[in-house]
């Protein structure tokens, strides 16, 4: 399969008058088409910085990024605007990029119906539950038909039960749409249940400590089912040991 995304020796630091804070150091990674990469690491290890670099919001100080396709970014919180209806929120990206065609609008209606939000097209964000809002945020990201999805802890603002459900929904949606995805999370079981590979970052400045391939049998093909797989605790423990061992 062809490479969708390639990082070569990426480094990045934040600058302030108090000094320089190195955030990422020498990150190299290549991601295949359709692959789901989960990135875990201690807080402050530069996970979110990595996504900002990939989306072009920040420029790497060293190294090179090669991207084949367009990016969609899903933030930690849904940030649906209360002054717009759900539908108007979902067309925000299309509106910004002047792609507000009937065809694109129809595809949003289709997604709304497919993902169980059909009845809420004209509702205000506050009328939706946390899980529904997060699904709406995903549709907003998918509306621009990105080839690669960047997910920045998209479930962390949800309560535990909703979190499992939405994680399952969104994981399944992304698989179904055959998107390449990069998920940043600090939840190890989330990483194991979603990822094809899990990248473990060290603490600041973030370096790649290890990359673990995750494989489950066909019977465990959704995030929720994976959690019941016999291998699940083994992967979890491997990640746990990697993260907790000090260099």
């Amino acid at each position, binding site marked *: 399969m062809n490479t969708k995304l390639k990082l070569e020796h990426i480094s990045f630091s934040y600058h302030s008058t108090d000094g320089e804070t190195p955030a990422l150091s020498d990150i190299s990674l290549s991601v295949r088409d359709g692959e789901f990469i989960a990135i875990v690491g201690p807080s402050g290890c530069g996970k979110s910085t990595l996504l900002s670099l990939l*989306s072009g*919001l920040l420029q790497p100080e060293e190294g090179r990024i090669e991207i084949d396709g367009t990016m*969609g*970014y899903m*933030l*930690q*919180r849904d*940030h649906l*605007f209360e*002054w717009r209806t759900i539908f108007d929120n979902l067309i*925000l*990206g299309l*509106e*910004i*990029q002047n792609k507000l065609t009937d065809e694109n609008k129809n595809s949003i209606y289709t997604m709304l119906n497919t993902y169980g939000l059909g009845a809420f097209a004209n509702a205000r964000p506050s009328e939706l539950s946390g899980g529904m809002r997060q699904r709406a945020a995903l549709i*907003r990201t998918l509306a*621009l038909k990105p080839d690669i999805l960047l997910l920045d802890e998209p479930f962390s603002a949800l309560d535990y039960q909703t979190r499992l459900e939405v994680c399952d929904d969104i994981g399944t949606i992304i698989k179904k749409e055959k998107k390449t995805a990069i998920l940043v999370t600090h939840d190890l079981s989330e990483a194991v249940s979603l990822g094809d590979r899990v990248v473990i970052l060290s603490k600041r400045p973030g370096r790649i400590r290890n990359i673990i391939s995750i494989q489950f049998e066909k019977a465990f093909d959704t995030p929720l089912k994976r959690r019941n797989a016999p291998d699940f605790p083994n992967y979890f423990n491997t990640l746990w040991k990697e993260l907790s061992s000090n260099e």
Partner: protein
Amino acid sequence: MNKLSIKQQEYLRQKSHHKRRILIWRIALLIFFIAIWEITTRLKIVDSFIFSSPSRITHCFISMVFDGSIFMHIGITLLETLASFFLVSILSICIAMFLWLIKSCAEVLEPYLVMLNSLPKSALAPVLIVWLGNNMKTIIVAAISVAVFGSIITLYTGFKEVDKDKIKLIYTLGGTKRQVLTKVMLPASIPLIISNMKVNIGLCLVGVIIGDGVKVGVKKKLVASFLKFCNQKSEL
């Protein structure tokens, strides 16, 4: 409908009783104040030439209603207030937006805004009258000068406090800074803009009254005595 429990009825009764008492006291306080004012002026404890009195105000008001002049005065004041309010609203939103778009410009201008805002505007009014002439334009400029600087500072500070992640969202969707302004900043700031307008309408009225007062004063006495004072000075 469910019948309310005795305790609930008791609670509601107490609540409405309390509300009524507050209202009675408010009105009583007003009547008390007006009565004291009237009595003290009648007994010449306070000077009615300076403080006027409720009966004189009522009398004056009624005679102005009968000859119709009150409506003209109210109309002019209202027009001046609304015109300056409208201009303050437009000006301050435009300038605050401009400052937000060009950050270094905001940094340069910040101390000047604070200084202009703390300038005593009533002291500015006579200067404006001498400069712009004794007309409605001057009153409106005076009213604008009272409200506009504070309004710019409030709006600009509000714009800066809009959720950074909402702004990031626009950039992740491929937006420009101008789109951040139109899609996030302005809609998110509407409650702020409205509350700021509520403050401004009051300030504009204050500005109009300051302007009007100074206008009358300048016309009648102040300029003459000021000039006389200047002459005496120069003669010395």
